[in-house]
């Protein structure tokens, strides 16, 4: 029983991190109908930005509250800027081209970032994973019994941050003027422009929000994993993508539910079966969901617009 509870907690904690990355996928898909395959790699770059900031702050300052806030701000802000640049110079010129063109470009950017960061020249970090500093001292937030169940502070933090951001996003999308514009752009950006909506700006801001979220998620992941590597984006990005599709891509709460589900399933597979089965089960669930509900758990299969 205690073991089950522990797995439940670990699974939820892992799921919340997927959730934050999945939210970015789903938002960008929502407005552009583009699977931004570079999303995970943007996250990776964000983690390196956080890493560099922590390094610059030094061992003492990086652990202070202000230090941690600064690390998150630099990483999230830097990633928002990176997302803006990618959208502006890689995707926007392709907006009126067939969607496949943008998709292939996204894959190209993904590879450029994940392999570019393996180079060892200039500021690039090289291929070897590095230890991510313990900017948040892991402490036991809750201990049940004789250490039967342990809930760590960072697990609670991730969960709170993820749920908070999800609620915030839901509010942004459904209750604000900007969100209304986002949903209009999502349905048809040409008609949205006829309402006076600056569609390019709406799309750019959406990209920036999604990329900033990814950086935050990446830092939480790196803190948990205590490491950072150029390929982490491919891996986490893929998992988050699976989560977003399971939930119904384009659907904000769906992404979170899909991610939590994925986190739990992975944890239980590792806990009760074997860790080698983890990814196979994750993708198996994806296939199963797509077979039974092609639009994802919450998505509706929309008729393709002509």
């Amino acid at each position, binding site marked *: 029983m205690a073991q089950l509870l522990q797995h439940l907690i670990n699974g939820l904690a892992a799921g919340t991190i997927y959730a934050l990355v999945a939210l970015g996928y789903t938002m960008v898909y929502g407005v552009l109908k583009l699977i931004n395959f570079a999303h995970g790699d943007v996250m990776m770059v964000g983690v390196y930005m956080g890493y560099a900031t922590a390094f610059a702050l030094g061992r003492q300052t990086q652990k202070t509250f202000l230090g941690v806030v600064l690390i998150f701000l630099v990483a999230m802000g830097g990633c928002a800027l990176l997302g803006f640049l990618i959208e502006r110079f890689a995707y926007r010129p392709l907006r009126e081209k067939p969607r496949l063109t943008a998709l292939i470009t996204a894959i190209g950017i993904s590879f450029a970032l994940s392999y570019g960061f393996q180079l060892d020249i200039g500021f690039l970090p090289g291929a070897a994973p590095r230890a991510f500093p313990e900017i948040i001292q892991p402490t036991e937030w809750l201990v049940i019994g004789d250490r039967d169940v342990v809930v760590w502070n960072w697990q609670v933090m991730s969960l709170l941050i993820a749920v908070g951001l999800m609620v915030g996003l839901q509010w942004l999308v459904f209750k604000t003027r900007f969100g209304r514009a986002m*949903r209009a752009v999502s349905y048809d950006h040409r008609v949205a*422009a006829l309402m006076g909506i600056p569609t390019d700006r709406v799309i750019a801001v959406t990209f920036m929000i999604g990329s900033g979220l990814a950086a935050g998620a990446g830092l939480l992941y790196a803190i948990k994993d205590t490491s950072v590597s150029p390929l982490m984006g491919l891996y986490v990005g893929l998992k988050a993508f699976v989560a977003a599709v399971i939930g119904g891509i384009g659907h904000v709460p769906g992404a979170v539910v899909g991610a939590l589900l994925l986190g739990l399933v992975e944890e239980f597979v590792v806990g009760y079966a074997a860790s080698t089965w983890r990814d196979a089960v994750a993708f198996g669930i994806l296939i199963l969901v797509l077979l039974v509900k092609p639009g994802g758990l919450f998505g509706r299969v929309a008729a393709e617009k002509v």
Partner: protein
Amino acid sequence: MSEAVKTLGEREPRPPLLTVEGLKVHYGAIQALKGVVLSVGKGEVVALIGANGAGKTSTLRAVSGMLKPSAGRITLAGQDITGMKAHLLVPRGMAHAPEGRGIFPNLTVQENLDLGAYLRSDTAEIAADQEKSFKLFPVLRERRKQLAGTLSGGEQQMLAIARALLSRPQLLLLDEPSLGLAPQVTETIFRTLREVNAAGMSILLVEQNAHLALSMAHYGYVLETGEVVMAGNGKALLESPEVRKAYLGE
């Protein structure tokens, strides 16, 4: 411009609001417009009629900034707006209810209306204008909280027009507002258009239903394969044997 445009009847002189000269539009290798010339005066209703594929929709799209013309010049209230983006033309008084209605089915009726007033911040005035639209189309008030995609075709067209009016345009572009509607609904919509025109709004009206369009228009243009081939006041066009033969099925 190849041949001269045949002109019938007088046009009541008005200060120009919209002028279009030598407008060309290409879709890749396909040339949809070959030098369209037309104008709309202040307070005027101008009809643009023509067969399917003549280039009516392309003309409206170029005027409202939905697409970039490959040649030509467009002015609104004396200012060159050629190639300007659509969202920058809305604050200059352009509203376009596009072909196929262009409502957002994933948003509620109320949210669609709110988007019509997207650039306005005069909350009290917006509420008053919305009240007016609800008077014109009471069904929209009843359906306010429903997703717009659940409306019938006629209700969607009413929503499209109400939404366009909420930006308080000087010039309203309408692309086949009667398409697929029951005669009663068409009647309601055209009555509304007459009312807003009487209040001073200029209208450029694209219709396949030439009779309907020309009987309400002050002036009209006939478009054929990307060119204006005939122009004249609404009454004169309605009476012209060519128009009657080609567009009124006589």
